């Protein structure tokens, strides 16, 4: 049996199996459950890595679920694919790798972080279910299936955000997220229904091959763009995000960062691979650019004045998503103009996607470091902190690295992706680049404040008994630190092997469609 052929299905089967095994493993004790959680996350990461490598070497991989032959998308006599197909191009593989790294780091971190609490079999189940939902969103080729995976990840998220159900703030944050998320999911379902009603198809590649812009398609596009922009935290639909990120257990927040990127992936997939140049007017690309600018600026403006560490980092998530939206919006704006695409559009998309990878790594690291501080001190309010670098030197160093990366300080990885976005957005209008630069300055100002107030300054007597966090938590942070440093030290390799293949796959609508429809656009 050729295992490579089954990698897309394995990527979903592993975390799903783990989710249902967790309650059983819990019967065998804490050690068995923890070992299962970490092992499943690690093997999921390995599968994601091998899938990414296979896609880079052999091109788009697809997997027909439930068919006689997993590689037969269009059985003889069929004009359109009717089974659920997982379609993994370089973009899907890139996002899945990114999500799997975050999931593994969060699982490692949670071993010690969650050890003080009860109900951990449910925690492990929901955590792995969230991982499966996120990865499903990233690799499915079916728009209804995409909705199903959104629901899987959303329901797992509601439970995980409200995991500390004795805390009213956690229950409230979960309720808010559930409310807006469910309305968003319903609109995605309506959009899928619009497209199914018009084309009698649910496969994204097949819809893309037949799509012609009309009223129904426009309604579906607006519902998809609005809902997915909301789910990735675009301003002004972002308000659920700081609450949800701040109240969830920290290992979960690390994974939620990657889940928001699955929504961003969905947005890009719909706009580029399903609609492509049929999108016609510049309105939607400009809307995405405006979402990007507003998210960047207002997100960071809110972050600067926060003093709850996790809420502050949460507002920075809104701001950082803005960079990706700006890059993708600029690329979408010039999708039908090969010259502009070659001059700056492709750079914008590459920058946006590279930023998505960078962001997931350093933002997850920042949340884990904030969680480590909370674990050690019981404090989240920066006003109560100070001098912690003496007590928690490893956490402080890793937080500093992530802060430098998010602030876009050279030579860190955040700088490289931002540079791509600055230069390409400048080509559309200098104002776009100015907003991006001002946002970066404010991001730096904000993290100078956080680092100075939490880790530097004189030691406070109340922290005399504080010790560095346990090894599993440090290991979770170290995984992400190593990735951030790797992306920093080898930017040309990272761009050539991670971001550019993903960007090429995103703009190659005919390649995405042809893999399923046999080139029959």
């Amino acid at each position: 049996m050729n295992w490579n052929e089954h990698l897309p299905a394995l990527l979903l089967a592993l975390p799903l199996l783990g989710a249902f095994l967790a309650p059983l493993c819990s019967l065998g004790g804490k050690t068995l459950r923890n070992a299962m959680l970490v092992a499943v996350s690690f093997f999921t990461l390995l599968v994601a890595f091998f899938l990414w490598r296979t896609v880079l070497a052999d091109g788009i991989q697809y997997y027909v679920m439930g068919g006689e032959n997993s590689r037969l998308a269009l059985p003889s006599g069929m004009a359109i694919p009717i089974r659920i197909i997982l379609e993994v191009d370089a973009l899907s593989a890139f996002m899945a790798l990114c999500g799997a790294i975050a999931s593994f780091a969060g699982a490692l971190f949670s071993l010690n972080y969650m050890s003080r609490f009860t109900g951990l079999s449910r925690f492990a189940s929901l955590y792995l279910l969230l991982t499966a939902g996120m990865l499903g969103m990233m690799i499915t080729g079916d728009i209804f299936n995409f909705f199903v995976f959104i629901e899987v990840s959303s329901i797992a998220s509601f439970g995980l955000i409200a995991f500390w159900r004795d805390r009213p703030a956690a229950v409230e944050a979960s309720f808010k997220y559930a409310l807006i998320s469910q309305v968003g999911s319903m609109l995605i379902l309506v959009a899928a229904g619009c497209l199914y009603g018009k084309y009698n198809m649910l496969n994204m590649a097949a819809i893309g091959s037949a799509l012609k812009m009309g009223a129904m398609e426009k309604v579906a596009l607006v519902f998809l763009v609005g809902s997915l922009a909301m789910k990735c935290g675009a301003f002004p639909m972002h308000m659920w995000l700081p609450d949800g990120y701040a109240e969830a257990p920290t290992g979960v927040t690390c994974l939620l960062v990657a889940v928001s990127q699955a929504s961003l992936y969905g947005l890009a997939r719909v706009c580029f691979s399903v609609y492509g140049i049929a999108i016609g007017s510049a309105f939607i690309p400009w809307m995405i650019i405006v979402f990007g600018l507003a998210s960047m600026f207002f997100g960071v403006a809110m972050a600067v004045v926060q003093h709850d560490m996790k809420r502050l980092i949460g507002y920075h998530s809104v701001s950082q998503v803005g960079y990706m939206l700006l890059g993708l919006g600029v690329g979408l704006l010039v999708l039908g103009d090969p010259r502009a695409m070659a001059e700056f559009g492709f750079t914008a998309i590459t920058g946006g996607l590279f930023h998505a990878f960078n962001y997931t790594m350093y933002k997850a690291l920042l949340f884990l470091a904030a969680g480590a501080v909370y674990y050690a001190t019981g404090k989240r309010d920066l006003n109560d902190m100070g001098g912690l670098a003496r007590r928690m030197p490893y956490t402080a160093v890793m937080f500093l690295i992530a802060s430098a990366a998010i602030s876009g300080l050279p030579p860190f990885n955040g700088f490289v992706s931002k540079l791509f976005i600055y230069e390409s957005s400048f080509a559309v209008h200098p104002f776009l680049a100015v907003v991006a630069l001002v946002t970066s300055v404010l991001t730096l100002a904000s993290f100078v404040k956080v680092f100075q107030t939490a880790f530097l300054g004189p030691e406070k007597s109340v922290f005399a008994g504080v010790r560095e966090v346990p090894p599993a938590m440090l290991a979770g942070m170290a995984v992400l630190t190593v990735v951030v440093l790797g992306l920093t030290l080898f930017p040309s390799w990272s761009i050539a092997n991670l971001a550019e293949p993903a960007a090429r796959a995103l703009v190659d609508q005919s390649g995405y469609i042809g893999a399923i429809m046999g080139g029959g656009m």
Partner: protein
Amino acid sequence: MGKVFTGFGYWDVGAWIIFFVVAAFYVLWLRYQGRSDYKKGTEQDEIYWSGNETPEDGDGLTVPASSAYWGFRKALEPFYDRLVGMHTGIATDILGFYILVTAFMAAIILFV
């Protein structure tokens, strides 16, 4: 390592790392030189705190995070009043923004 080509120019991570290594070496060398008149355990070890007596606990020394960038926030008070004001935290407001944005996009794309 290597150069990153952006399409508009390039950026070399190696050059920056060399710069930081050289700068760090120079700063550490300067620090190592020290001052010849330094005497450990004297008042020279005291923190200078605007001529006042240094508090025992760090609490009295630090500027709390909520006071950081006070001037920035004060200068932009009208902007911040509105921005913070729109973050009510009320679930229906959160949903309202989403519905409004989606409705706006739908109206423009369908009727303009």
